[in-house]
């Protein structure tokens, strides 16, 4: 199941004009140039003229550079940022339906409390739960609940923003080793 993306994964945060057909231009460019999309999430930004597409790709560095340049060639693409795994905060949402009868539900609820998830729907023999977290946390959760029996699973694909600068301006780095 949802294996962790290989170490080569790169996240591209792409701001595009919020117009019809723009997603087709972006995904069409990837298909046309033979690039593989690992996951993709799209939604409007706070400025309704623009949407942000977060694309995770598996590729080596040189072809990521080429992807960024090809993306930028699209007239409706306004900004492209490449986010390394250590340079971004990434989140993903998981909805998952699993088999859990009355006796098993307690264990599931306990697990959800620990991981910060919640129950969004309850059926006779099943539960649908939600968890929003870093992608690797979702992977862990999947593994933990698999013994109950997963019947449906949907992940959103990750969204990401750059990590914020933590250092105060103009302060010398002290005690730097190496």
């Amino acid at each position, binding site marked *: 199941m949802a294996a962790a993306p290989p170490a080569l994964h790169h996240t591209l945060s792409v701001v595009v*004009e919020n117009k019809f*057909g723009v997603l*087709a231009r972006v995904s069409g460019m990837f298909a046309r140039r033979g690039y593989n999309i690992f996951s993709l999430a799209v939604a409007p930004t706070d400025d309704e*003229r623009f949407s942000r597409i977060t694309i995770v790709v598996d590729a080596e560095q040189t072809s990521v550079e*080429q992807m960024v*340049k090809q993306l*930028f060639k699209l*007239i*409706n*693409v306004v900004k492209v940022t490449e986010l390394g795994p250590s340079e971004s905060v990434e989140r993903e949402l998981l909805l998952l339906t699993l088999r859990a009868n009355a006796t098993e539900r307690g264990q599931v609820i306990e697990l959800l409390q620990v991981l910060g998830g919640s129950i969004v729907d309850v059926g006779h023999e099943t539960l649908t739960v939600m968890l929003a977290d870093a992608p690797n946390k979702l992977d862990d959760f999947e593994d933990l609940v698999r013994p109950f029996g997963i019947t449906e699973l949907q992940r959103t694909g990750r969204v990401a923003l750059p990590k914020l600068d933590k250092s105060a301006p103009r302060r010398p780095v002290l005690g730097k080793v190496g």
Partner: protein
Amino acid sequence: MKLTGAQALIKSLEMEGTEVAFGLPGGAILPAYDPIIDSPIRHILVRHEQGAGHMAEGYAHVTGRPGVAIVTSGPGATNIVTPLCDAYMDSVPMVVISGQVASPMIGTDGFQECDTVGITRSVTKHNELVMNADDIALSIRQAFHIATTGRPGPVLVDLPKDVLQTATEWNWPTDAEVAASLPGYRPTTKGHPRMIKEAAKLIAASHRPVIYAGGGILNSHAAAELRQLAELTGIHVVTTLMARGAFPDSHPLCLGMPGMHGNFTAITAMQRADLLIALGSRFDDRVTGKVGAFAPDAKIIHVDIDPAELGKIRRPDVPIVGDARLVIEQLILDVRATGPQPDRSPWDRQVAAWRKEFPLHYDEPEDGDQLKPQFVLETLRDSTPDDTIVVSGVGQHQMWASQYWRFEHPYTWVNSGGLGTMGFAVPAAIGAKVGRPDKMVWAVDGDGCFQMTAQELVTASSERIPVKIAILNNAYLGMVRQWQEMFYDERYSEVYLSPDLPDYVKWAEAMGCVGFRVETPEEVQPTIDKANEIDDRPVVIDFRTDAREKVFPMVPAGASNDDVVVHPTQVPLGSPGPGRRPPRTVQ
């Protein structure tokens, strides 16, 4: 002022300076054809929409202004996909207006409906479906702006019939409004000063530099600056297939065309170079041969207005994003400031030796042989003004035309480079002649190519566009035949076309042209002279050429440029080696 969408469209084209549009009406585009009657725009009615597209390209190639084509929905739009792709590959500025079914019909598989924007998305620089008549003027302004700035290319504007029929308040957007409407489009034109200084330093340190000039020189109008740079530094220049004419062939520093059918010296100088200065060129596979073995010792300065070209094929040591002319202007200043160029006389002597040993060559015909195509081209070249515009199709004749013509002026060579579109020559020549009626326009075509788009000579006759067509008729798809001879053990598969079917002279006459047939060397010159005197209608000459003639030099597909195959008679006996390897079969 209230206008219909169609009137706004035609008025927008006029405002953009359109003097001619190539097109063919149909159902969905009908509303746009009504205001054309009252417009100063000259409309040229083509016989097939592919012709309209290539005419627009030919026009753009020789004028530098965007070519305009108008087609209807469905098959009209799909017929112009090939020229769009051709223009995209060769960075030709073009604006195509396509009709679309009325907006309520879109998505219902209506009559003559197709997803034009979807189909053309990957073969245009940009395209747009306009759903509101109020947006027509802005869309046309955007289209011309995008087509002509940055790396030029084709833009398609798709207009539903009801949008063309809707009334709209005329409003011509300002430059600022256009810029604001394209927040993601800001081409970089000025090169980075530090990088240009770096380039000047690399040049000063180089002992075997070669300037690798591409079509970007022509797009940026940098021929004069290129010449200045070459003369200032004394560096030899190769001109790619797209850049023929960007640097005069008669110039002592000109090495001519590199690549698969380039001349030996151009190919080998690049292979042995310690520095390649790529100006508006894109390391196309036809130039590099096997990429891993291309110019192995060369550092690379790569100047291109399209950032995606830098590092796409070969990682540059000095990447410079910018307009070739602006970058070269600055580079000249920096080269001057860097001081004198090193002594490169050993390299210059080596280049001169290659030139002497391996000039272009073909064997004289023996009695009973058919015409040598190279001889026809030499005679044509020597019988026409040196600013004659030469247009070619794709194949052997194209390579020979590029090799044997001597291009002295920019914008005198029009061909389909990247896409390799057979049938390009006739319509592109018509477009070129419309753009430059003051110049003589000769299309050099193959018999295979000619049969693909010859119907446009009807357009040329009826519109009084006196182009001249030289068919090098060897009765074969010649380039394919050459590959089958050399690489498929002479097993000729589906390449024979017949010299007499069709009868090219009768066909030409039926299309309102003058037709000639030439079979002997003695007839070549006088027939060309006769053709040159005809200026009131198109002329077609059917030259019967020798099918056994092959294009040399040749770098076989996938081979290293070190393994360039020269003409068999240039191979010294008993000395096959790098650069002198004979072909597997020699006729």
